[in-house]
């Protein structure tokens, strides 16, 4: 019994990573007012590119880097169209979602050809941290994970420190709350929005690359299974703050693992109902938390400094 609990919690932490990274990426952009809705497409591109580069270079590290760069490119596009050209964020987000969806399937088909048996890449190994991983119970859960689990936790803590304990972080948040004031204080709102969206895009691309590198060892069409959209829900759930997003992703991941587990063990419910569970649970969670959710004041809007009012 004890080992099943340990196993379960280990899996929860393992599956939390895409949620954490995509959630933090969404949050970072949102904190300057850019509401990204292209996560699903960006994650797919990250997964596709990360897989292809890892396969051809034989280096997962290189795959991760290129996946992050592809995410950054999408972030840059989002920032340019919304911040510089002042176009509707949802329209651009959906367009990028569409482009990501297409590129992610087109690339493997062009590069690998149309095959029935896709090649495999080695999946990320778990790196036990010396000494700490020896602690009973907590050790195998927390300290015997792959590197990106550690990275995702560190990124969350780092973002919290940056946003809530540094001057630059405060400035960044002010851009997402009331850009006119921020602007009048001499903060470069455009630059802030660009950087937050680009770095957010990197995190989202990395979240996508995690999927082939840890779960499947290969890229399959639509392998994100809506995780990009769930990440938006998670961000609202976490009140657009790094640490609550980290805790929230534990919850999202636990639901996912649970649904999968019960499916394997078998139950009186049809498996399709179990598969629906994460999505239904997300909606229920949103009903419970959405009204109280703290949302950046300027979320989803574009700031035009030449206009007289917002």
């Amino acid at each position, binding site marked *: 019994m004890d080992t099943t609990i340990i196993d379960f919690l280990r899996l929860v932490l393992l599956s939390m990573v895409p949620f954490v990274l995509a959630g933090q990426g969404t949050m970072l952009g949102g904190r300057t007012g850019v509401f990204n809705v292209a996560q699903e497409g960006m994650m797919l591109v990250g997964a596709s590119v990360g897989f292809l580069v890892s396969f051809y270079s034989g280096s997962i590290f290189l795959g991760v880097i290129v996946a992050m760069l592809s995410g950054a490119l999408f972030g840059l596009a989002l920032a340019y169209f919304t911040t510089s050209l002042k176009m509707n964020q949802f329209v651009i987000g959906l367009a990028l979602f569409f482009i990501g969806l297409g590129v992610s399937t087109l690339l493997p088909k062009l590069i690998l050809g149309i095959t029935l048996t896709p090649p495999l890449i080695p999946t990320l190994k778990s790196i036990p941290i010396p000494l700490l991983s020896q602690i009973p119970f907590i050790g195998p859960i927390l300290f015997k994970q792959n590197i990106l689990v550690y990275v995702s936790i560190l990124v969350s803590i780092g973002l919290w420190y940056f946003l809530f304990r540094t001057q630059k972080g405060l400035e960044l948040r002010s851009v997402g709350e009331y850009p006119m004031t921020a602007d009048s204080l001499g903060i470069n709102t455009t630059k802030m929005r660009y950087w937050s969206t680009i770095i957010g895009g990197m995190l989202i691309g990395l979240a996508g690359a995690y999927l082939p590198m840890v779960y499947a060892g290969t890229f399959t069409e639509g392998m994100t299974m809506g995780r990009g959209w769930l990440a938006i*829900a998670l961000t609202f759930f976490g009140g657009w703050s790094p640490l609550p997003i980290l805790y929230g992703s534990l919850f999202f991941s636990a639901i996912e693992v649970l649904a999968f587990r019960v499916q394997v063990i078998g139950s009186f419910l049809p498996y399709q109902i179990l598969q629906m569970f994460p999505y239904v649970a997300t909606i229920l969670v949103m009903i419970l938390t959405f009204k109280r959710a703290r949302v950046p004041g300027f979320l989803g809007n574009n700031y035009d400094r030449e206009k007289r009012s917002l």
Partner: protein
Amino acid sequence: MTIVKKSLPYLLAVVASFVAAGIFIALMGFDVFKAYQTILFTSFRTPNGFIQTLLKFVPLLLLALAFTIPLTAGKFNIGGEGQMMAGGIGAAAMGIMFADLPAILLIPLVILGGVIAGALWGLVPAWLLYKFNINEILTTVLFNFIAFFLIDYVCTGPWRDPAAGHPTTVLIGRGGWLPMLINNPPLHSGIILAVLVAIGVYIYTSRTTGGYELVATGANPRAAGVFGIKTRRMFVLSLVLGGAVAGLAGAFEVAGNQHRLIEGMQSNFLQLGLIIGLISRGNNGAVPFVAFMIAVLEVGASAMQRTMMIPVEMVFIVEALILLFVLLSDVVRRK
């Protein structure tokens, strides 16, 4: 003259995207002219190709409308796929449960089943928006996934056709099949209704008071509210209407094409519906034309994959570029 002036940016956008994508295709080492010939003329070369295009046009048109109707009121419905599947389930349920009814009763029943199921699938996110102020993009997308597993459940449940390898239900009653306009190659009469719906939507949004309230809500919800329009109700109405139209697409797939419910029948209609809606820039009047253009491209692209081994997704580069250029032409015009 104004029409020429207005459509000029679009034409330029289309031409520019073909040129840009052509360079890309050439760089990949394919024969650009042959590829474009296949993409553009497959639909018009043979009767079969043309009917293929029309069959593709019907769900694309309806799913694009399912996106643009809520967009008129400023809401984003990304749940067209789920609503279409719900519509398919509703239609199949009617067609299987009342399989013995004569056509005159069963056809309306099947279509209504689809429309109502689709509308309900749109109503839930609308209600969540109305009651709890939950972002509709999120909920409509999540309902796609729920519908996806629901259709799998229905197709493997009591109505399952044991003879089929893929999850499918048994055939719906013969009376529920849409009459054919042409028998060989088959073209069902749903296309007439789809075009009528498109015209109806256009008239509703541009010529009626109710439609005007939708447009006003989308243009500036605060101003609309000041003038006494119940904007939140308009949001709900628009999403439910969008769901109903998507549900109709599902009913057509069941009653017109497959005559049964098939897991995975939604294909990539959602993405294409989105891009059609975005290229039309939410203009309900432009949707049918853009939908037809995309249907031509899609049918041409699958022919291109068959004959030239160029992946179908290549055409998506053309589509994405058209969208990009259309959006950019907007920016240029503003300046």
